[in-house]
């Protein structure tokens, strides 16, 4: 606020009320009091001073205030305070919807299962299941976060100002935050370099979002998982050796897909604020 404060004359007049103070001055002093702590303190001091002065004269403001207070007190005691917020609602719901939780749990347990199979079966083949599954797991999570079938509030979500790329990215981030640690444990125990699974994983996520803006996130996820199963998983399991796509040589291609996906997502960011992206 500005350095100016209400004068003692105005404050005293305000406390006494009545004709001592003009209506515009009342407005001004009230507006000032709302924002100025110093003047509020001076006001309460003035009230107290006048109350003691008036106590000599007879019935006073203090007595009136006491009466009102004693009338209010039982009512205030009966009012139930607002229950404490649950952690879930306040913080977490800004990052994921309740419907995403079971999906994330499922995806995380599939990863752990794949990891266990890898560890048990370590000698027989050189194909790592974790490596095979890593790229498509986040796709499922992303689909669950922006899907007509899985998110009951999808239409409401599409209509709000926060809808759009911003919210999609928030939810995608929360999917990755859950999955990347699980996958890195898996990658570390099976001896795969981080880039080998992280890049395909991110590339597939960005491709889902890019394609999702055009045909809907759900359909994009189904399409990409099908492609992945047909082109990478089936040949790998048939020949039981890691395909070129997951060798370290293929990394530049994955990087390219990632960059392309991010580019398309940014260019078409308006697509996520309409119903089409929920298909």
């Amino acid at each position, binding site marked *: 606020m500005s350095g100016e404060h209400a004068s003692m004359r105005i404050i005293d007049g305000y406390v006494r009320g009545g004709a001592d103070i003009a209506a515009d001055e009342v407005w001004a002093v009230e507006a000032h009091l709302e924002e100025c702590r110093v003047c509020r303190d001076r006001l309460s001091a003035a009230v107290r001073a006048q109350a003691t002065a008036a106590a000599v004269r007879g019935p006073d403001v203090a007595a009136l205030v006491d009466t009102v207070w004693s009338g209010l007190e039982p009512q205030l005691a009966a009012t139930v305070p607002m*229950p404490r917020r649950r952690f879930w609602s306040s913080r977490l719901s800004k990052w994921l919807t309740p419907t995403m939780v079971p999906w994330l749990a499922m995806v995380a347990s599939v990863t752990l299962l794949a990891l266990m199979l890898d560890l048990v079966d370590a000698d027989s083949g050189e194909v790592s299941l974790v490596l095979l599954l890593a790229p498509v797991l986040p796709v499922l999570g992303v689909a669950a976060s922006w899907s007509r079938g899985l998110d009951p509030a999808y239409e*409401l979500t599409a*209509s709000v100002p926060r809808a759009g790329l911003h919210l999609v990215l928030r939810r995608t981030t929360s999917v990755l935050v859950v999955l990347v640690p699980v996958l890195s444990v898996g990658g570390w125990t099976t001896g795969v370099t981080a880039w080998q699974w992280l890049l395909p994983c991110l590339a597939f996520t960005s491709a889902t979002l890019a394609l999702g803006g055009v045909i809907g996130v759900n359909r994009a996820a189904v399409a990409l998982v099908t492609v992945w199963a047909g082109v990478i998983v089936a040949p790998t399991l048939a020949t039981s050796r890691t395909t070129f796509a997951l060798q370290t040589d293929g990394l530049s291609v994955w990087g390219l897909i990632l960059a392309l996906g991010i580019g398309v997502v940014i260019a078409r960011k308006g697509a996520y604020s309409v*119903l089409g992206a929920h298909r």
Partner: protein
Amino acid sequence: MMRAVSVADIAPTPYAWQIRAAGLKVRVGRKRMAVDGLDLSLGTGVHGLLGPNGAGKTTLIRALATVLRPTEGTLELLGEPVGGRGEHRALRRRIGYLPQEFGYYKRFTVREFVEYMAWLKEVPKADIPAAVQRAVERVGLADRADERMKALSGGMVRRVGIAQAIVNDPTILLLDEPTVGLDPAQRLRFRELLQELGMDTCVLVSTHLVEDVAAACTDVVLFAQGRLVFQGTPEGLAAAGGPEHVGDSPLERGYSALLQGPVKHGGSW
């Protein structure tokens, strides 16, 4: 509660109509035009959107809520043209929307859900608790505010839907079939709320109950096969019908008289 008046509150409105559509067409699926060349201007007040099933009411409301992009024609909301690639964030902050299928999260309490929606609608963080309380009180759910949504009856869920629509104090309020599942007493209360809101808001209520329109609306928009059939006062709608038309009340007779005109029905209903 006293609130400081901001510049935005006292700025003159730069538009004549809150909702203005000219030659509006909205495509659904590949071929079907659910809204087919609509000219409509709506200002402050409660507008009842009437029409047979499949008339395109929901599509129109979705287009007005900016979740469907117009295929052709112009649509201006609060003076801002809608369409193209934009996200319309500033505009959406001033729209309240209750979809026909109101989906919600069962685990949330009423308060949590309305708070969540307030957050999604970018209500300033400091204002959220008060705005939520006000919205919940207006729909008469203050005593159930801390119950889980799954414990509520259908009518109460509907009222939560109305609460989330009004939590951001919208200038345009779009309600798609809000009276479904409300019992008669609740419907009366809801009509009062509509009239209250209609004082300073452009409210568009889609309904298939003609008596809702008679009781709460200042204006009727009759819509069939994607086109505007009639716009005027409820009295005007009643005047269109004569004793020879089907219906139990003057409004119903007017409704059937206007729909019999140039528009052909697809089926026997």
